[in-house]
């Protein structure tokens, strides 16, 4: 009887497993093999033009200034953009939570809207916002007597511009998660804290935050993973420029793999990104376990 159930379970799993093997495990392993070769446009012409590079490929990658630039940009985006997204999402959730029920539904919808808009359309609108002469931001700056900034054209500001856009685009999703978690905190805890004479800050610090921890760690994890995969924003808004200030690892991979058909090199970039993500994710979940 136990065996029939096991067989049934495998049969039920089979479609999913087949799909995962065919569309995930297979390609990932193929990419690993490819990343040790110099598969490129010449290889498509004649497979004897393929050379096995082995780890030399990764040595080439580590000597590529563009790779380090992309890594640095990506980490900046993960740290600055990621934490800003979490803070803004939490702040928005707390603000809405305190609001009246009708207002709450309205605000929730408004803040969630950017999440459901098409990123390309939103990026086009934001590009107009950022325009050095006619953009609204610079009109405001000039009105305040400050010099205008070429947000997307100046290497010093471009990453910040991308981060602000990305925070706006993404925080709504995490806000909803925080909001759901906030609403599930039992009232009694706050009543008890109030009776004990806890101030609002103390209530937040010792009731709200601990109760939010599962949601918080989920949001942080999702944000970090998402931020490492930064692609669409720079792809649409800056193409990685100016002076590679917004070149991300995924954009570097895309350029190599799909624009220049340097498939081997692109696969190596993908694997470095994958390894980075595995390490970061494991570290984060370790931290989470230890706290428990």
């Amino acid at each position, binding site marked *: 009887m136990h065996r029939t159930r096991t067989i049934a379970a495998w049969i039920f799993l089979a479609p999913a497993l087949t799909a995962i093997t065919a569309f995930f495990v297979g390609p990932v392993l193929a990419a690993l093999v490819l990343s040790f070769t110099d598969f490129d*446009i010449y290889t498509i012409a004649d497979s004897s033009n393929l*050379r096995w590079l082995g780890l030399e490929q990764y040595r080439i990658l580590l000597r590529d200034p563009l790779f380090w630039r992309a890594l640095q940009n990506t980490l900046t985006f993960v740290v600055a953009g990621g934490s800003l997204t979490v803070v803004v999402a939490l702040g928005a959730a707390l603000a809405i939570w305190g609001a009246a029920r009708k207002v709450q539904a309205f605000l929730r919808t408004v803040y969630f809207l950017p999440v459901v808009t098409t990123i390309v359309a939103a990026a086009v609108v934001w590009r107009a916002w950022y325009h*050095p002469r006619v953009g609204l931001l610079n009109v405001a700056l000039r009105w305040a007597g400050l010099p205008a900034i070429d947000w997307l*054209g100046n290497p010093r500001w471009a990453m910040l511009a991308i981060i602000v856009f990305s925070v706006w685009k993404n925080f709504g999703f995490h806000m909803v998660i925080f909001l759901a978690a906030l609403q599930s905190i039992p009232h009694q805890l706050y009543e008890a804290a109030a009776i004990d004479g806890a101030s609002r800050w103390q209530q937040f610090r010792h009731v709200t935050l601990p109760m939010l921890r599962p949601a918080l760690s989920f949001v942080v994890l999702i944000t970090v993973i998402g931020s490492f995969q930064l692609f669409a924003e720079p792809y649409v808004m800056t193409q990685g420029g100016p*002076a590679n200030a917004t070149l991300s690892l995924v954009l570097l991979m895309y350029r190599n793999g799909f*624009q220049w058909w340097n498939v081997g090199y692109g696969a190596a970039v993908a694997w470095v990104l994958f390894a980075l993500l595995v390490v970061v994710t494991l570290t984060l979940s370790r931290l989470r376990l230890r706290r428990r």
Partner: protein
Amino acid sequence: MQAQRPAEQRWWWVLVAGITLGSALGCHRAVEPSPALRVWAMGKEAEYLSTRIHGRMIGGYRVEVQRLPWSAAHEKLLTAFVAGTLPDVVQLGSTWLPEFVAVGAVECTSIDQSVIDDFFPGAVEGNLVNNRWCGAPWYVDTRVLFYRRDLLARAGFPLPPQTWDQWRHAMRRIRQLGPEHYGLLAPLDEWHLLVALAFQAGAELLRDRDQYGNFQSPEFRRAFSFYVSLFHEGLVPFEGQGQVANVYQDFAAGLFTFYVTGPWNLGEFRRRLPGELQNEWATAVLPMPELGSPSVSVMGGASLAVTTSSDKRDAARELISYLLSPEELTHLYHATGDLPARRSAWRHIGDADPLRLTAFRTQLEHARSTPKIPEWERIAGLLLRYTELAVRKHLPVDTALALLDAETDRVLAKRRWLLQRTPTQP
């Protein structure tokens, strides 16, 4: 304990099995040879072909035109080649041809000198790979100087500049007209003007059969320094004012007087500039390093090629020679503004905008194609990167050029290996 499964859940099994079986069978459906002569084209040329030849009978086959967007065409064509589903005739951007020849996707034939004499030399150069004729130049483009006559006159110049020194001088004077008047628009994501200047200075971008970068040569250095100095002198808007929202509005507003661009903008300028400016913009050949040498620019455009996978090559060739007849090229020009690659077709198109076309006609005689190797797009990317670094003063000119050469050499490593193995290739 017997697992109870309600009867209505059983249909799930049927569905799953059906889908699996169906998709398995679907994969095995044989690809039938198509009775149509298939053509893939891009952009407005695709629109033109759709209305002009789609559905016609050529060489006993019905012509079928498929439109691709330019932005995705390169990837789609390569993927189609790998999958073995390329059509019979493809339109290829001029810089793509070497790549499709290298992978063996397009058919190359021996040349008939009498046929190619009629084409512009730069177009022939771009379509000849290893002395074989791999694509037929369909239409051509090159970059010339577009300028505002009124602003130039206000700055004290009745005629467009002919030399680099005159050009720089004119830009300085234009700059004095006011803070919202710059000399030249030169977007940092376009390499064509810099390469045209390098060609004019006599530079070879690569050396030793395109195996190494040659950007530290005195000729290239001269062009590069001139180009970068225009930015450093503040004659080109790039920071604070650099992002151009609408070239036409900014040109009309007088933000810049010079713009180096291609024939597609003839129609756009006519359409989009306000009426009172229509007599105030003109075209001229690019200024030269010094008087006497011909003004050289970069050859662009597109070719039509027969694929090696085609089983209707005779019909495909017939279609191409039909599209390349002077009458058809004239028709193409009137429909799209594309400039004919054959000189004989130019006799019929001069009337539309004779003054402004003259600059193109002259410049096309001396337009050169960029290095014909698949790596060119990547090298152009490096060129943009180091130009930007020099323009922004992150690197001095000499360091930028040395690094550019070093990185170009790295990109060409595979090519050197291939040439060592089979010296006649690629």
